[in-house]
């Protein structure tokens, strides 16, 4: 699991400054990875299964509504990165924002993936976004 997240987050290069590498690899990457997966899954579940099935809301199933959730998910992923790096007291570095951006992109990817998997389970939005 750690190795997978390390691979995933080091696609954008090694952590900076180098002295913080062990903290990123041992703590921050696994945290971000798990949180990102969890939050993305949760957002998908809320959109397809809660709003568009359990609550039976009929006016929140268009592509733009899905896009709102996609954007919200990316924003959460970005903020979570800033929060996690602050919580682990790593040295301030522009790398933190690169990492946050990368995490937001990954968040959108997970959101898309879970959408494709779960949209059929929804009654009102089974064809959103396509």
């Amino acid at each position, binding site marked *: 699991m750690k190795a997978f997240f390390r691979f995933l987050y080091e696609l954008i290069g*090694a952590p900076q400054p*180098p*002295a*913080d*590498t*062990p*903290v990123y*690899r*041992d*703590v921050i990457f*696994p*945290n971000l990875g*798990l*949180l990102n*997966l*969890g*939050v993305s*899954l*949760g957002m998908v*579940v809320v959109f397809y*299964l*809660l709003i568009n*099935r*359990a*609550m*039976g809301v009929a006016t929140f199933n268009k592509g733009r509504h899905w896009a709102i959730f996609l954007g919200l998910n990316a924003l959460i992923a970005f903020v979570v990165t800033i929060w996690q790096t602050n*919580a*682990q*007291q790593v*040295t301030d570095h522009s790398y933190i924002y690169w990492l946050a951006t990368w995490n937001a992109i990954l968040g959108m990817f997970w959101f898309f993936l879970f959408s494709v998997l779960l949209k059929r389970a929804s009654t009102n939005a089974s064809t959103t976004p396509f």
Partner: protein
Amino acid sequence: MRYLTSFPRLLPALGLTLLLLPGCYSRSDMKGEEAAADTKTETPAATPTPDAPAEAAEAASGAAAQPLQAVNVFLEVSGSMEGFMPKTGASGENTKFQQHVAQLLSEINRTPAARKKAFFRIKEKPYADTYQGISGTVRSGIQQPAKSTELPAVLDTLMTRYYQPGTVSVLISDFIYSPKNAGAIPYIKTDITDALQRNGAQPDLAVSVYGYTSDFRGTYYPALKAAGKKTACCDTEIPYYIWVLGPADAVRRFDAALLEQQSGKQAHFGVTYPRPAYSVLDKFQNKGAWYYGDAGASKRAAGSYRVVAVSEASAQQPVEFVVGLNLGQLPGQYKDVAYLKQNLKLEGVDTDARLLDVTAATDQTKASSGPQSKYTHFAKVRLTRQPKAARPLVLRLQDQRPVWVAQWTTRNDGTPAPKTFALSSLLDGLAPADAARPIFELPLTLQPAK
């Protein structure tokens, strides 16, 4: 009401989401786990089941906390010492020797660092005295000076009669040693070694030598008798010494308790010291692409990092890292930055790592919130080649004869000066057989980043 009936079907998905959140790592969690693990390892030591390493550590710390068995103080009262302890003049003036030694005797008498204190005057052999007696002699002068005492004979007596575990002998003298004939002068070193190691039975013998100078009012007896004694001496200060003899551990503890604060010169022979605390510091004057390579680097307690993982190093982008050293337990001689700069060596295999600089802690590092606040000295290392595999790197402090010994040595003491006849030969005789033994060795590891 429809959503209420179908809501339970969503519960597994929501539950999974909630479960994922607290599953995250954090450093504080890991420290907590580590602390828990620590208490687990400590528990068996507390139970009566004997745990060998824990027991050994306990015994060692117990011994350190225990006071020494005994301290035997020997004051030489031969004629050549009279000038240090002149009879009190009308104006009540005294010499630095009187001031210093009276103070030191009082401290030894009062110290909780030793259980039993005994005081002796050295004439041709040691005579038992009391603290009051010795202190009175120092203050008001020697009543019946002895004929000159032979240093090897004195050392021999100390070694055969007073060398005990946990016991140190403190010898206060001017250490002007004149062999009976001039032909024996080249053999001073051998004479001293013979006297100390007659049976070769004291492998852990250690000697600490402290040198001081004092004004001198009286007759000066040079070692070279041909030069003749000088009455009403002297305009210059004359050196006197305190030698601490005993088992290495006892000498170290006595030095630390009583003599470390004193301002004199010092040299140590055969004294061993516990390995000082040290750690690589990753956020103190660090440069280049490297990080802690220790297993579980992010969950370790600060101060236990030994492995440097280098991800990139070149002549343009060198790697620099600082090793924090806590030398608080070492004597002043080895804490001196100039000494460390000369004698702290870095030895590595297959690397161009070298020691750039050694610095002492500053107010800034001491007040810092980082781990550097725990260290008294910092050694900065630079390398420009990435290691090919894990390679050992050792910081070693060589034991070097201090410079003052040579400066205080003279080959002709006919003219009074703050020098002692053949001092370096005397001290040569103290050097243990394995004189090349370093003061400490601190192993580190260099490895490529994985």
